[in-house]
């Protein structure tokens, strides 16, 4: 920024080549607001144009070089000075010299590695951005453009259910079961709580989803717990032999995939907390970690095919098969 009315300044504008077609994703900013950013995946090429517009037409812009960088970095809020860059790519756009008029520069970062998902948390932020810089003697002119990266996974090969018997000796014995240990972000937690022994007076039972963000290493580890959801699954007092079903749809909650020891700097893990509350407000709970992963969007099959699959569960086989073959014909 120039404080004098003479001298030249410029505005930088970064535009992606596929700005029209590329999807945008919503991402929370540090102050809690939600903004839309261009969505990229690991390995995708980042290409576009840098438009440098001179503020005072007619005057020349002297500079020490123009470059564009693609940066992936981790920022710990309590240590703002140190940014940990895990991806850092540079492309020189112009050698030191003079610009007589506004110019546009092309850039391309081919098949960029984006190993981690963008994350904005309570004590740490992981972000990817493009930064175009015009270097000058006194002050540089800079422009940053944030992008959002999602990491995708496929259905895990091993996805065992979680089944455990817990309790207080002679007071309360339950067996809880969750159908999987790894859930994708739009999945459903299907489970049950089976009461083996109930000698306390239970008032109600709920299941909470807790997000735990861990930052720091060694003696300076810091955990930040956040209850994302509280979902009541039972109201009233159960007796021995009773079974309470659980059906919790995850798509309704704002969650990220599980991130374990990202770049050895932070972790984000999720836990299911089963809480029983008795008539004197005493709380009995059992916490269990689950792994969350992000599923890629698949091309939707035609609606009739989906309806045919649904009917298979409830009707007799004959009509269902007829509906399926009809749907296949419609598709072709």
């Amino acid at each position, binding site marked *: 920024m120039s404080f004098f009315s003479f001298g030249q300044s410029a505005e930088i504008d970064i535009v992606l080549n596929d700005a029209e077609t590329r999807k945008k994703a919503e991402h929370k900013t540090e102050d809690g607001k939600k903004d839309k950013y261009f969505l990229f995946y690991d390995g995708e090429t980042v290409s576009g144009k840098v438009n440098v517009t001179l503020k005072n037409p007619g005057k020349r812009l002297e500079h020490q070089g123009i470059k564009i960088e693609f940066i992936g970095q981790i920022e710990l809020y309590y240590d703002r000075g140190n940014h940990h860059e895990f991806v850092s790519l540079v492309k020189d756009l112009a050698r030191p010299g003079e610009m007589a008029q506004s110019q546009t520069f092309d850039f391309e970062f081919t098949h960029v590695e984006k190993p981690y998902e963008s994350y904005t948390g309570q004590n740490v932020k992981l972000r990817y951005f493009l930064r175009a810089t015009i270097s000058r003697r006194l002050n540089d002119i800079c422009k940053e453009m944030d992008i959002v990266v999602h990491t995708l996974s496929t259905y895990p090969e091993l996805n065992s259910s979680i089944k455990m018997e817990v309790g207080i000796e002679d*007071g309360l014995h339950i067996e809880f079961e969750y159908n999987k240990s790894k859930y994708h972000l739009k999945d*459903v937690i299907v489970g049950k709580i089976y009461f083996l022994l*109930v000698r*306390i007076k239970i008032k109600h039972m709920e299941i909470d989803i807790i997000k735990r963000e861990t930052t720091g290493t060694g003696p300076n580890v810091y955990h930040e717990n956040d209850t994302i959801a509280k979902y009541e699954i039972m109201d009233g007092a159960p007796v021995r032999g009773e079974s309470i079903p659980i059906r919790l749809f995850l798509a309704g909650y704002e969650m990220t995939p599980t991130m374990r020891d990202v770049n050895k700097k932070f972790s984000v893990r999720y836990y299911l907390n089963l809480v029983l509350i008795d008539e004197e407000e005493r709380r009995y709970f059992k916490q269990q970690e689950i792994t969350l992963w992000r599923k890629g969007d698949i091309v939707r099959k035609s609606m009739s095919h989906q309806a045919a699959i649904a009917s298979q569960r409830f009707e007799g086989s004959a009509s269902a098969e007829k509906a399926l073959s009809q749907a296949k014909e419609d598709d072709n």
Partner: protein
Amino acid sequence: MAEAIADTRRLYTKPQNLNDAYGPPSNFLEIDVSNPETVGVGRNRFTTYEIRLKTNLPIFKLKESRVRRRYSDFEWLRGELERESKVVVPPLPGKALIRQLPFRGDDGIFDDSFIEERRQGLEHFLNKVAGHPLAQNERCLHIFLQEESVDKNYTPSKIRQA
């Protein structure tokens, strides 16, 4: 073929035994604090309350019991539980020292409305404490609820299945 619709069918559960479903629940515990009676004369008066317990929990030796206790017995119980167990013991209703000063317009600590207020507080306290699984393991609670008189020189210990 990817899942178009998530499978949300319930997990398999054993059908409940009809006896378990319609029989009496295993968590029956009823405690009442009632019938306040002031005994003694003049300076040496004090009020006792009847503590009635009915239960089917196996941890209690007697399924029914009836004892009389005074406020200082409750203070003793609270002190023992705080020291011996890891329970966060709820507070008792107030000690009402001001009511014990002379030259009052009312009956001080023998005032009917005060006794009723205290009775309610003691009942609330006992219900909160007696239902606590960790407090139920303490000998002092069982002495307080079920023995004829409170032996303040008892040996603190833990109780397992009676």
